[in-house]
């Protein structure tokens, strides 16, 4: 479970995304692990009855675990002085039997959606299983929300499940030691994943370039927790992560069709090639940088075809098929103004009909 201490309020977020303030519903007999961080000053999560207390620091995760034995309501205090309403930052811990806890979990309450917004009254059920599962698998919806976030933010583009993407595959990363570019090894725990997402340049895994954009300030704490839950869920050493999470099978990259594409001079674009191009565009991770929202590291491609493009060296050129092809194969040649040349070179990695599919797809992106 994830706890966020804010000045004079505790946000508690259950594995399935259900959120509550100043309250903590816990099943008995289950070891519960709290992953806590603070948004402003130092607080301290203190449950006298369970004899546990741990300071909650801004800027890093601290963890606390306990196993409730007797159902009932217990006090929850903030033990580290944190300002005017320090004495109001209290709450109750409600320990329930397992099935009561299940029932409570599914009652509608506000839930964090993948884009970080909070919607009340909506229960995030795990799509591929009918009822809520027992035990650790409860965190599916959280992982599912994390997974949706993972694709929508474009992480899936680089961190391809099967590997071979520009970023390392994240399968079975959590809980294992990673060897870093400078040869040192580090245990991939919550803090490692948090800092790798927020400040990605710090710990580059061996054999990969520091290309990943820095997400600090772009994603909220809740989204960060969801991503963390997803990454934990796809590693079999994830502790409270179920092994049975439906892993987003990578769409099999389409076997390049041998159909010779009609010469591209014809109509605006060839629909069939464009759809294949689109899948390729996602799988190769182009979508991660060339985001439609324009926020990505690469320029926005929608409506690019046949438009005047200003290049870094000041000259400008019309984005015709030849320019697109050349930019894909030898990306550093003509870099668009105020973008830095970090696009990987696909010369020799892509067959030319794959390139043609991509070009057709880009042509299909009309404004």
């Amino acid at each position, binding site marked *: 479970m994830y706890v966020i201490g804010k000045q004079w309020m505790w946000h508690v977020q259950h594995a399935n995304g259900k959120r509550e303030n100043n309250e903590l519903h816990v099943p008995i007999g289950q070891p519960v692990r709290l992953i806590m961080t603070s948004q402003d000053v130092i607080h301290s999560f203190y449950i006298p009855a369970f004899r546990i*207390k741990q300071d909650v620091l801004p800027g890093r995760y601290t963890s606390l675990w306990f196993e409730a034995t007797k159902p009932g309501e217990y006090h929850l205090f903030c033990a580290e002085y944190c300002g005017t309403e320090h*004495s109001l930052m209290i709450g109750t811990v409600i320990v329930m039997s397992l099935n009561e806890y299940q029932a409570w979990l599914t009652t509608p309450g506000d839930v964090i959606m993948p884009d970080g917004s909070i919607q009340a009254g909506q229960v995030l059920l795990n799509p591929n299983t009918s009822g809520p599962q027992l035990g650790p698998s409860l965190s599916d919806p959280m992982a599912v929300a994390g997974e949706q976030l993972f694709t929508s933010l474009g992480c899936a583009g680089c961190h391809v499940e099967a590997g071979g993407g520009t970023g390392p595959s994240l399968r079975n990363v959590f809980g294992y030691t990673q060897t870093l570019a400078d040869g040192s090894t580090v245990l991939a725990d919550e803090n490692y994943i948090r800092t790798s997402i927020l400040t990605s340049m710090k710990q580059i895994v061996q054999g990969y370039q520091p290309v990943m954009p820095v997400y600090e300030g772009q994603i909220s704490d809740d989204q960060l927790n969801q991503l963390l839950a997803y990454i934990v869920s796809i590693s079999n050493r994830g502790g409270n992560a179920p092994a049975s999470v439906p892993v987003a099978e990578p769409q099999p990259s389409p076997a390049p069709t041998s159909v010779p594409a009609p010469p591209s001079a014809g109509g605006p674009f060839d629909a069939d090639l464009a759809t294949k191009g689109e899948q390729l565009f996602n799988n190769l991770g182009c979508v991660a940088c060339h985001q439609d929202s324009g926020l990505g590291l690469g320029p926005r491609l929608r409506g690019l075809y046949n438009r005047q493009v200003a290049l870094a060296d000041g000259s400008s050129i019309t984005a015709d098929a030849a320019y697109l092809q050349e930019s894909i194969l030898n990306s550093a040649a003509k870099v668009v103004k105020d973008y830095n040349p970090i696009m990987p070179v696909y010369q020799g990695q892509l067959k030319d009909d794959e390139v043609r599919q991509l070009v057709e797809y880009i042509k299909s992106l009309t404004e």
Partner: protein
Amino acid sequence: MSTSAIPQNYTSTRADSATEWIKSWLLTVDHKRIAILYLLSINFFFLLGGLAASLVRVELVTPQGDLMTADMYNRMFTLHGVIMVFFFLIPAIPAVMGNFLVPLMIGARDLAFPRLNLLSWYLYMGGGVFALVAAITGGVDTGWTFYTPFSSSYSNSNVILTMSGAFIMGFSSILTGLNFIVTIHKMRAPGMTWFRLPLFIWANYATSLIQILATPVLGIALLLVMVERVWRVGIFDPALGGDPLLFQHLFWFYSHPAVYIMILPAMGVISELISAFSRKRIFGYEFIAFSSIAIAVLGFLVWGHHMFVSSQSVYSGLVFSFITMLVAIPSAIKVFNWTATLYKGSISYRTPMLYALGFIGLFIIGGLTGIFLGVVAVDIHVTDTYFVVAHFHYVMVGGTIMAYLGGIHYWWPKMTGRMYNEAWGAISALVVFVGFNMTFFPQFVMGYLGMPRRYHVYPEEFQIYHVLSTAGASILGLGFIIPIIYLTLSLFVGKVAGPNPWAATGLEWSIASPPPTHNFDQTPVVTEEAYAYPEDAAAQDSDSWQAGSHL
């Protein structure tokens, strides 16, 4: 030696005009006068802190907390913390009794640097003015520990004013410590070897070692927080990569030795009282002397036990917990030796002795609960609760203040030449003892049940403890007011006390009661060891006892 006639004693001056009189007191370099100036200013701050304490206690009678708003309550308990710690407990015994008695006990005419001594009093008052101005213009709401990032970026009360007050007081404490070290090393009377020194001097020596080694670190910690507040640049602020725990390390590196600054001189006073009132040589002189030094040294290694739950690494928690057990040993040695001194002594229950016995009892409770807090596992439950509040009040109020009052009563005839009223003295000692226990013992129970510290509003089930504690606090408050009344009265109506009303040993008892300005006409030569009471003192007392003479 100034050949002019030595004035009758340090209190009377040949001042003719009022300004002359004021100048003779405010610009004095006589350690005895500076001690009196300290006595007055420290008692003023003690009453101010006590007032804040009583307001906090009255506020806590009701769970909803309706006497004052939460913010006012936070400022009140911070005021109580800052005033009591920085402006009463740390300077109390070293400055008042230390200044007065250290030169007398070692046979010197004055401290090594008299002008520096006056400067440290002015620094103390300067710091006090800063703290008062801060208190009046709205106080500070960060708690006396000033934890960042709250104190550096989230609190908008005048933190800088209070911090500079504590910063300046730090210098006064350093200068006093420095003065004592040099005096004790260099200005002992001929024949006064280290092992003939009274134990009060050993304790003060150890205290001043801590003062000069620890206080600068507090100075730098507060300075850095002030820089952070002024330029909005975070050194302890996690947003800028800083670490709030670094502040806690620097702060507690000073503050734990500071609690030993508070308790060590109190132990020195108690060693004097116990041997004087059981008319017996102190048992295990070397042990007590060296345990003072041991406390001073070990005190520097244990500060981490204040930070067990603050995500300090588990391994350092282990190390600090182990060394905390070691630091408890010297205190235990002292208590054993005191009780051994009492054995077979002819104990007379005069007021100082009542305070001394009260000290031993309460200090044991305080010390042992300290061991609970030293163990990491237990500490996780009880830290930042009222258990901790009760623990350090047992050691500070039960220890330092009881010893302070006992010392004031014991040396009152020496300071003023007048005896206090014995009956009132006994009453005040009992009232203080009862009031104290009634205030703080319920807090142990409440703390263990989980009542957190610094809470303005609390769940109902703790109310009975709070009501009990507030009742006790009023008795305790009364107990502190009574001595002020009868001690001031004794100045005018008190029986004139001769040079040695307690028939005690020690150089300070060999000169006139309000000692002359230059202490010793001729530098005394010390021949026997510190507490040279006759072997059969107990036998002599028992057969010379008649009904009606003091117990």
